[in-house]
């Protein structure tokens, strides 16, 4: 069960001719796939395309009616390999994943797929996680398109253009027998807009039909000597066919006056930012009408030489707006112009920054610089000379605290890292390898744990060089989530550690979901899933891999137990990798599941218990040691208002879910007795109520008796 329910959105997928579809960019793509007769869809979740997977998962009934097969692939490599169904059969297929990391994982399959080529349209929707808000390294997917010779679309970021790109992508793929990548930026994925819907189309051939009449074409199989044929075919047949299609179908758009002496060649994805910058320079209106000549590349690879040269003809200078590094497009265009003996001045990186997101301000500066240099007469006076008196705004950089992401309230991973910190306090610091997932927040304060992160499921693998010759010496600790474990970790990390007789410690953080990407089900999820087989044991998988020392912890909030188990793993003399599977459900998903049930049961008069934590402010001394082992959003500081005290004390707010971490940490780290756990029982049993009242009476009497004899605050 994903974090968000898309039941409402799924209904929109049923819309047809005459309807207006409105929603997020990523939903528009989902709808466009169905309108284009897709036969199967797969992918691996990850920002910014998680919602695409979630919507499809929630839309299985509709997909079933249309004869569309949907798979939540085990990895991006699996997803890309799935496109093999379009190699021999005229079935349209689409897969989606986060790029560039997903494309990295997929690249083996991508090379094979691209080499043999496809018959049915094969679309790879890559969610380009680049720029502000990105959670990954900053690289470009473009290199994959170039090296594997697959085509790449980068449509203008509005829903009609994005939807059109899906259809164009399938047709381009079929016309050139080549897989096509559709690149979507983070904000395009999440942009809200609308487009005119069409009827959904059943695939011309379903995957079931394909199975009933298998086909096989030796020339499409990646094995010499066919591979040599493929290489030649890419250059002599597929690329020219793609170029023809791009020109004939007008995939790339031209705006402004063709007669202009300067021009811009831009990636479709940057169009809105370019227009806004031109608008601010007084060179475009708010509808995008402009005199400046613009070639908007909705297909960024391949580039069609004739189109580029045509555009540059008669111009003094051209600016390439290409986000990210290296500047592949600029290099190609430079090469074209040089070979053709053109003398037009080519600008790009330099006027614009070498790397980083091209934000509004960056674009404004870049276009301003280009026009000032090559068409100063176009630059409005106002933009060049600043009339506004600069206002001196106080510098707040010393005041503002950073606000990095961290574990949610009640997160079951928090106690694991609290325990790790306690182990380090006892046994000293260790080399810690981190992995991809929520648990990576351990890198941030207050835990500050983890030295490297090398990829999804590769946490333990990235500690594999560290082998201590001294069996009593320190071992490395590596973390991997349940998501990473099933994605890649079982073989690349655990299997590798077993095979190479690693002596290190592996902690598998099992929160029942691929949580960081939105709570998708995975093999070891505990929930029943109608279309997936869940409840597969991580422990048994590890044992199957040959792990001998393995411990299962069923409640990560037991900090003492986690700490002691970790200590044992770091000190035991048993050979081979030491694996700890620390399991507790992701609190975000658990609350989403349980809260309505609890409210309903309470309303129905059933006995329910709601736990919460609190702090006795008179006992708390304001040292905040508890927060250095927590970082929970619901545990904060507050003033006491007592003139006798200087420091703010700990306080727990209403958002507390009563996970128990505070008390457990205070216990394990022997911090202080100021925490208490309150459990509020609604609809108590009559006996329970009577007993509570009786006890309270005795307590009242005792309190009264004690207070009567002494000087005390009443």
């Amino acid at each position: 069960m994903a974090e968000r329910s898309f039941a409402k959105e799924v209904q929109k997928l049923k819309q047809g001719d005459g309807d207006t579809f409105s929603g997020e960019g990523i939903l528009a793509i989902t709808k466009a796939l169905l309108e284009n007769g897709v036969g199967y869809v797969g992918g691996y979740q990850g920002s910014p395309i998680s919602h695409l997977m979630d919507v499809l998962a929630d839309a299985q009934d509709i997909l079933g009616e249309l004869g569309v097969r949907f798979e939540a692939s085990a990895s991006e490599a699996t997803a890309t390999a799935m496109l093999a169904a379009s190699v021999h059969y005229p079935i349209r297929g689409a897969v989606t994943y986060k790029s560039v990391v997903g494309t990295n994982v997929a690249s083996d399959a991508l090379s094979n797929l691209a080499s043999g080529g496809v018959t049915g349209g094969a679309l790879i929707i890559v969610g380009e996680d680049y720029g502000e808000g990105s959670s990954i390294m900053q690289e470009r997917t473009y290199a994959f398109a170039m090296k594997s010779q697959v085509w790449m679309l980068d449509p203008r970021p509005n829903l009609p253009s994005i939807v059109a790109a899906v259809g164009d992508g399938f047709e381009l793929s079929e016309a050139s027998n080549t897989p096509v990548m559709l690149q979507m930026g983070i904000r395009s994925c999440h942009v809200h807009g609308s487009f005119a819907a069409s009827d959904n189309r059943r695939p011309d051939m379903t995957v079931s039909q394909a199975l009933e009449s298998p086909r096989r074409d030796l020339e499409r199989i990646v094995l010499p000597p066919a591979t040599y044929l493929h290489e030649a075919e890419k250059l002599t047949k597929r690329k020219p066919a793609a170029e023809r299609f791009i020109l004939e179908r007008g995939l790339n758009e031209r705006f402004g006056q063709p007669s202009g002496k300067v021009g811009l060649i831009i990636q479709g994805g940057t169009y809105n930012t370019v227009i806004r910058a031109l608008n601010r320079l007084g060179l475009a209106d708010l509808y995008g009408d402009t005199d400046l000549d613009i070639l908007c590349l909705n297909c960024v690879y391949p580039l069609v030489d004739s189109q580029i040269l045509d555009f540059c003809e008669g111009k003094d200078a051209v600016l390439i707006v290409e986000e990210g590094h290296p500047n592949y497009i600029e290099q190609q265009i430079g090469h074209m112009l040089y070979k053709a003996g053109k003398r037009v001045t080519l600008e790009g990186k330099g006027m614009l920054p070498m790397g980083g997101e091209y934000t509004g301000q960056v674009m404004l500066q870049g276009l301003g610089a280009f026009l000032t240099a090559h068409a100063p007469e176009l630059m409005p006076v106002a933009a060049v000379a600043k009339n506004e008196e600069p206002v001196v705004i106080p510098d707040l950089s010393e005041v503002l605290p950073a606000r990095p992401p961290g574990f949610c309230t009640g997160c079951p991973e928090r106690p694991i890292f609290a325990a790790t910190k306690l182990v380090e306090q006892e046994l000293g610091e260790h080399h810690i390898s981190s992995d991809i997932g929520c648990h990576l927040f351990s890198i941030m304060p207050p835990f500050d744990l983890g030295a490297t992160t090398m990829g999804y499921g590769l946490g333990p693998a990235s500690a594999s060089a560290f082998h201590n010759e001294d069996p009593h010496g320190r071992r490395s600790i590596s973390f991997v989530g349940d998501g990473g474990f099933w994605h890649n970790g079982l073989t690349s990390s655990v299997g590798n550690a077993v095979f190479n007789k690693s002596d290190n410690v592996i902690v598998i953080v099992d929160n029942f979901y691929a949580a960081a990407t939105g709570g998708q089900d995975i093999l070891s999820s505990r929930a029943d899933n109608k279309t997936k087989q869940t409840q597969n044991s991580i422990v048994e998988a590890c044992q199957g891999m040959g792990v001998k020392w393995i411990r299962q912890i069923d409640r990560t909030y037991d900090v003492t137990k986690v700490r002691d188990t970790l200590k044992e793993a770091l000190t035991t003399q048993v050979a081979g990798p030491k694996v700890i599977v620390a399991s507790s459900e992701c609190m975000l998903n658990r609350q989403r599941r349980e809260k309505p049930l609890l409210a309903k049961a309470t309303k129905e008069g059933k006995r329910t218990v709601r736990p919460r934590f609190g702090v006795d402010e008179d006992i708390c001394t304001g040292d905040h040691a508890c927060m250095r082992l927590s970082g929970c959003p619901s545990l904060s500081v507050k003033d006491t208002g007592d003139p006798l005290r200087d420091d703010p004390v700990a306080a727990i707010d209403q958002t507390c879910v009563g996970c128990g971490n505070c008390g457990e940490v205070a216990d394990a780290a022997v911090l202080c007795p100021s925490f208490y756990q309150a459990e509020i029982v609604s609809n108590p049993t009559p006996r329970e109520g009577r007993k509570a009242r009786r006890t309270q009476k005795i307590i009242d009497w005792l309190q009264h008796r004690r207070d009567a004899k002494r000087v005390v605050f009443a």
Partner: protein
Amino acid sequence: MNIQDTSIAARRSPSSDGEKIITLAALAVGGQGGGVLTNWITAVAEANGYRAQSTSVAGVAQRTGATIYYVEMCRDTGRMPVFALSPAEGDVDILIASELMEGGRAIMRGFVTPGRTTLIASTHRIPAVAEKTVPGDGRADGHKVIEAMGIAADHTVAFDMEALAKSAGSMISSSLLGGLAGSGALPFPKQSYEDVIRASGRGVEASLRAFNDAFDCATGKRQPPQPEVVTKQIETLHVPARHQAQWGQLQARLAALPAPVQDMAALGLTKVVDYQDLAYGTQYLDMVESLATMDSAPFAMTVAAAKYCARALCYDDILRVADIKTRASRMSRVRDEVVVGDDQVLMVTEYFHPRFEEFTTTLPRWLGKRLQKSQRLDAFYTRHLDKGRRIRTDRLRGFLMLWAVSALRPWRRALLRHDTEMAHVDGWFATVTDVARKDRALAAELLANYRLIKGYSDTHVRGHSKFARIMQALPILQGRPDAADWMRRLRTAALADESGAQLDGALATVRSFAGETA
């Protein structure tokens, strides 16, 4: 610093038909309902015949970090405007910040432009992790941000929208929307906002209340919630009849103290008397009076003495914890805090972890000292008894256990812990008295150094060690005109981090100007 650099600060140009795009950015902290707010704003715009586009970086991977939502809108003329997908520096018409520091961040990022931007900000604080983990008070100074808002924004609507939403039983997204509507920055009637809230379906009444309250605050019709000045609940001291005479004597001594000292000393006196007994109050007043005789107006040193002597005397031992946990006033505070209805039952579990040290120091001095020397007993305790204890104080058994411990109060002076504490207090106070003869400002700082001693077990030990290290700097500082200032700086450094790294640096500086090598 001047944030407006030499870069181009061009403004958006309207279309030939005079239409303009309005840009709105919202900076929120994860979990504040920024998505709901953006959806509402978009819906209001569309209901008023505008085209609108919203974007965000979804909170999926962001969790509790800062997130930006962005909306652009323009009157619908039949043509689709080209909307930008993210806010640009100097190009934001309306900036909504759902927390004070996020408002400051928006200013630093150039999203608040003089003469252009309407800033709608909630002034409440959500401390970041880095602010919370400081052993002292690590909270950032919000005044500078509020000051900057006034300078950077064209028009500012800033008040505690969180408190307002809470009192209306709603979420901050509702009050932010009210602030936006009330600011008049968007050309939409109030009614259309209310309609959108009604259409959203969940918690409508509470949302409308928060929306309207915030609207009224923004338009000046209503006084915004004032920053809550936290004052300690004034507790009345219950003095049994047979103690009245003695208590009267103490009151008389209190009244004889210099006027500036009396408030603090009154608090201190009640604290120590509540902690132990009237004789303890006498001991406390002896200390305060002895310093008062050496002090003169404005009696800053004596005020510090009144504050920190009370703290020093009321050390945190098991007796005190057991006493507090079993008081009627505490029980009712817990019920308030966790919100328990009359028809509900409250179960309360206390988390204790008494170690061998706590066990032995709670014994009579002779016995405690002897047991402390027994390594076998230490080992036995550590192996079998050193573990967390969960005590249910809503049950008779658990309550009686703590009640019994609290009943040891009359014998506290005979316990080992009291011995150690008093030895430390006496040493500290003797030093203070000695220094007070020559440098009263320095003596006041030495008194304030007791702030470092806090916490339980290891935290307590760490506090003691920091205290001791600071006090070691005394011989170097004594006699210098800036001694008090340096002592204060050392204490601030000691409170800045857990490890004492900053204190090391500060001590090294002190040693260097004393000509000593570190």
